């Protein structure tokens, strides 16, 4: 049975559906700034809950729980936004009169903008939205994550999720004149030199497991033991079958899981030497 993957699962982009329960009601919006936590992966991480002095993030039963904000208690102090390692917390303020509000974003790039700078506001998918003015910059504290506030029309407060500082000139260094990237299929298995087109051709020809593809192409049989390519092949297979990654078998793993020199294998461990 084919399950349709959400945009969040497929591309990592949150939609209005995913934000349900993450945004305050109209009354709380008018009260003052509030935190929007766009955290969707259940991972063992809790700095936001621990750092909140107002107990405005609902307590976790388990460290893997997702954070939800109690908007009646949240003051928008932004302490959680500073400590979130995933940069997933944004502070929105639409309590002021008029059409404009502010969005405060965690920012870990150089240069750090200054108050008054014009920057380019961007959406969750990175697409450019419009130029926006920096109204406040809080330099990084202990964790060094800086917070930058932009003035944004209220109807875009749930759209703007990053920004870029316009550069004077494009200065990406490139010394790869040997490659014509436009004509090359991306490499999947770096050890054995297998590209994406080769993997897709094999899937189209009916090879539907990681092991079958491994046996045909050698992808995953090099020194890195499939650590670079297995996930990519799995996601290609899942895409082909239209199911989520978890429903696929990862193929066979065999030791050693990390490269070991023959020397170590020949000598054995110190423990072995003692026992003999």
């Amino acid at each position, binding site marked *: 049975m084919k399950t349709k993957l959400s945009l969040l699962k497929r591309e990592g982009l949150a939609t209005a559906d995913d934000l349900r329960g993450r945004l305050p009601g109209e009354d709380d919006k008018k009260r003052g700034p509030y935190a929007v936590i766009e955290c969707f992966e259940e991972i063992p991480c809790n700095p936001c809950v621990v750092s909140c002095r107002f107990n405005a993030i609902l307590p976790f039963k388990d460290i893997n729980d997702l954070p939800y904000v109690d908007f009646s208690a949240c003051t928008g102090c932004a302490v959680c936004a500073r400590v979130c390692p995933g940069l997933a917390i944004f502070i929105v303020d639409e309590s002021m009169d008029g059409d404009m509000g502010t969005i405060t974003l965690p*920012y*870990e*790039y*150089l240069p*750090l903008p200054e108050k008054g700078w014009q920057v380019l506001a961007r959406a969750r998918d990175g697409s450019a939205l419009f130029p926006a003015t920096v109204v406040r910059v809080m330099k*990084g504290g202990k964790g*060094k*994550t*800086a917070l930058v506030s932009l003035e944004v029309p209220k109807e875009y407060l749930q759209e703007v999720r990053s920004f870029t500082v316009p550069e004077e000139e494009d200065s990406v*260094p490139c*010394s*790869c004149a*040997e*490659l014509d990237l436009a004509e090359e299929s991306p*490499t999947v298995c*770096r*050890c*054995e*030199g297998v590209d994406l087109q080769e993997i897709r051709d094999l899937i189209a020809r009916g090879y539907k497991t990681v092991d079958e593809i491994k046996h045909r192409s050698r992808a995953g049989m*090099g*020194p*890195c033991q499939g*650590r*670079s390519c297995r996930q990519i092949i799995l996601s290609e297979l899942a895409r082909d079958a239209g199911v989520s990654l978890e429903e696929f078998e990862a193929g066979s793993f065999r030791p050693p899981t990390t*490269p070991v020199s023959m020397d170590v294998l020949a000598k054995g461990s110190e423990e072995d030497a003692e026992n003999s």
Partner: protein
Amino acid sequence: MDSNRILEHPILEFTEGEDLPFSFDGRQLVGKSGDTIASALHAAGVRVLGHHFKTGRPRGFYCAIGNCSSCLMIVNGVPNVRVCVEPLQAGMVVCSQNDRGVLP
């Protein structure tokens, strides 16, 4: 020469290490203590660490955590050294690897 070294970073802090001379394909280069071989090469502007034995495609600094096989090089005569996780030592002889590696 060290124009590619990161001196300013939004989160991390770096302390300046002492110079460590080494050679790369016969060229004399200088890294810093605390470098891995790959970071010293990167700082010196070296982007191609070898070529793939099958495709001939140039290979560069890729995962940088010892996971992939993109940075395998011959170090002091030993092939298949993951230079991204191998600390640089003074006087190391580093060579590009273009084959599966021949045991010394």
